[in-house]
């Protein structure tokens, strides 16, 4: 207790004791972090824009970068929720492939190239993803298997099923409407359909996470699951919902992926989950749980894409992008941890997704 505490609490009743900071509900730390990432992105963009004034900031190039990020954003929204609970989902790349395969097969047998076929495929893909997500959630929440192991298992199994269903050969039955209107189409002018879809998903995620009780309970569980349980939160059920949401979005990304690549990309998604996790972490969501934002994730996912695009334009081998992204990831998380350690002072010894949920994963100080 400090002298000012005593001073303001003096007189017993302490009417001056409770003050309201004028700010909104986002924590200040989260805001500083988000600002820092936005700045990083802005500087990166500015550097490339100066180096290549005629080609980098053209509508065509921007459109390409946005389109390349869109599917990752859909995946990143789900991943953000999962990581805020202190979990992890390694399976999303495989679930995306599996959902794409099932949707492709169903659409091929349904026939046609129109919106009705696209709708059928979308429903099937989302349902496939949801099923994997529910399985992940039940195994994490009820069977108490660590999330890392559960989703490592479904990473392998979902891809295996996809290969069994296709004998390992990519399917290419995406209907024309899906490819022309969604994968490569524009809603208006140069605004790609994929980007609008990603934007809608991101805004939905932001509202759900920051404005609703569902979002609040997501933070609470990541912060202190036992405390949540003691005040009556249905922790297990909430975790199942979170993994189900991540699976659903991976399924949805499966149909978008089919429209974009016109292929089920069976061999092409092995790094997807890791890339998305990197974006989420760069965006300020803590792998220890309890902290994070969807907005940060969106920015964090743009950074690698912008770097890659920029390096190609300035004739640096694009492989440098991977090196730089790795360095950015580690630096951002390191700096963030230093600041957090100073601010919250909570000591957490082990990453929660390596442990069973709710079994003394960490020493809580609050």
């Amino acid at each position, binding site marked *: *207790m*400090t002298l000012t*505490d*005593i001073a*303001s*609490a*003096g007189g*017993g*009743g*302490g*009417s001056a*004791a*409770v*003050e*309201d*900071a004028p*700010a*909104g*509900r986002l*924590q*200040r*730390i989260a805001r500083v972090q988000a600002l820092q990432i936005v700045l990083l992105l802005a500087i990166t963009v500015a550097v490339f824009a100066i180096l290549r004034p005629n080609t980098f900031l053209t509508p065509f190039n921007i459109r390409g970068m946005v389109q390349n990020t869109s599917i990752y954003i859909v995946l990143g929204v789900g991943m953000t929720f999962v990581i805020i609970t202190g979990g992890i989902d390694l399976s999303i790349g495989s679930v995306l492939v599996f959902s794409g395969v099932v949707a492709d097969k169903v659409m091929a047998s349904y026939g046609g190239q129109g919106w009705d076929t696209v709708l059928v495929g979308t429903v099937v893909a989302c349902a496939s993803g949801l099923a994997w997500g529910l399985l992940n959630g039940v195994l994490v929440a009820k069977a108490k298997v660590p999330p890392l192991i559960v989703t490592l298992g479904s990473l392998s199994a979902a891809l295996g099923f996809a290969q069994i269903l296709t004998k390992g050969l990519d399917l290419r039955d995406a209907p024309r409407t899906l490819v022309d209107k969604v994968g490569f189409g524009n809603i208006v002018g140069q605004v790609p359909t994929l980007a609008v879809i990603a934007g809608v998903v991101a805004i939905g995620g932001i509202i*759900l996470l920051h*404005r*609703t*009780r*569902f979002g*609040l309970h997501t*933070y*609470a569980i*990541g*912060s*202190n699951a*036992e*405390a*949540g*349980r*003691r*005040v*009556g*939160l249905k922790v297990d059920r909430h975790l199942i919902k979170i993994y189900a949401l991540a699976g659903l979005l991976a399924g949805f990304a499966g149909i978008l992926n089919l429209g974009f690549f016109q292929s089920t990309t069976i061999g092409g998604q092995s790094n997807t989950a890791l890339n998305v996790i990197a974006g989420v972490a760069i965006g300020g969501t803590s792998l220890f749980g*309890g*902290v994070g934002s969807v907005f940060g994730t969106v920015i964090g996912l743009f950074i690698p894409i912008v770097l890659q695009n920029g390096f190609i334009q300035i004739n640096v081998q694009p492989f440098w992008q991977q090196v730089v992204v790795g360095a950015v990831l580690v630096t951002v998380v390191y700096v963030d941890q230093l600041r957090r350690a100073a*601010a*919250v*002072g*909570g000591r957490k010894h082990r990453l929660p997704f390596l442990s069973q949920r709710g079994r003394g994963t960490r020493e*809580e*100080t*609050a």
Partner: protein
Amino acid sequence: MTPVLEAKGISKLYGHVEALTGANFDVNAGEVVALIGDNGAGKSTLVRILSGTEPATSGQMLFDGKPVVLTSPVDARALGIETVFQDLALAAHLSPVQNMYLGREVMRKGLAGLLGFMDTPSMRKGSRDAFEKLGATVRNLNGPVGAMSGGQRQGIAVARAAAWAQKVVFLDEPTAALGVVQTKNVLELVRRVSDEGIAVVFISHSMPHVMEVADRIQVMWRGRRVATYRKEDTSMEQLVAAMTGAVSQVAA
């Protein structure tokens, strides 16, 4: 007078460790009972059982004279029993307001509420009132409680329990991390809560605090109650003797 909450012959085994061995306990409405005993005597274990957080290995619990079985903290809360645990059980990353209303959020009216949108202004107001009533120094209603001092966090946890309790409040060492002024506030709050007819169970290692605030004092030693005294009829020397097992009443 029937005690609002009574425990009979509660035992608790952790593997081979006997944390409680046939412990009795009782508290009346509007009464402050201090529960004292040496480290490891079983006070926190008893509180966890009586607040529904852990099941007893054996024993019976009566609420308003009727047997009850608590399977979760939610059961206890439904009966009007609130608890400040020794570890406080706050979510470090959430704000005081969010902690105050966690699990009991006030939703907006109509469709927005059904969609999961919360009535944040009214929760802020409710929290501010509760903290002011306690005189808790919560400077920032929006910051994460993990960034606040131990005393501030304790103030928040105590205010939360006091604000929601209808029948019984358990306070497991509520003044352990507090400075002089905030301790005084908590002790005053304890009296105020009991004046409203609510039973308060107060665990503390501080004999002066116990003597200041308690109506009755129940002493635990090695997993059970060994003595019960009215405050007027006892002294610190007698309490300390009982805590070391030197005294024990037959009908404890």
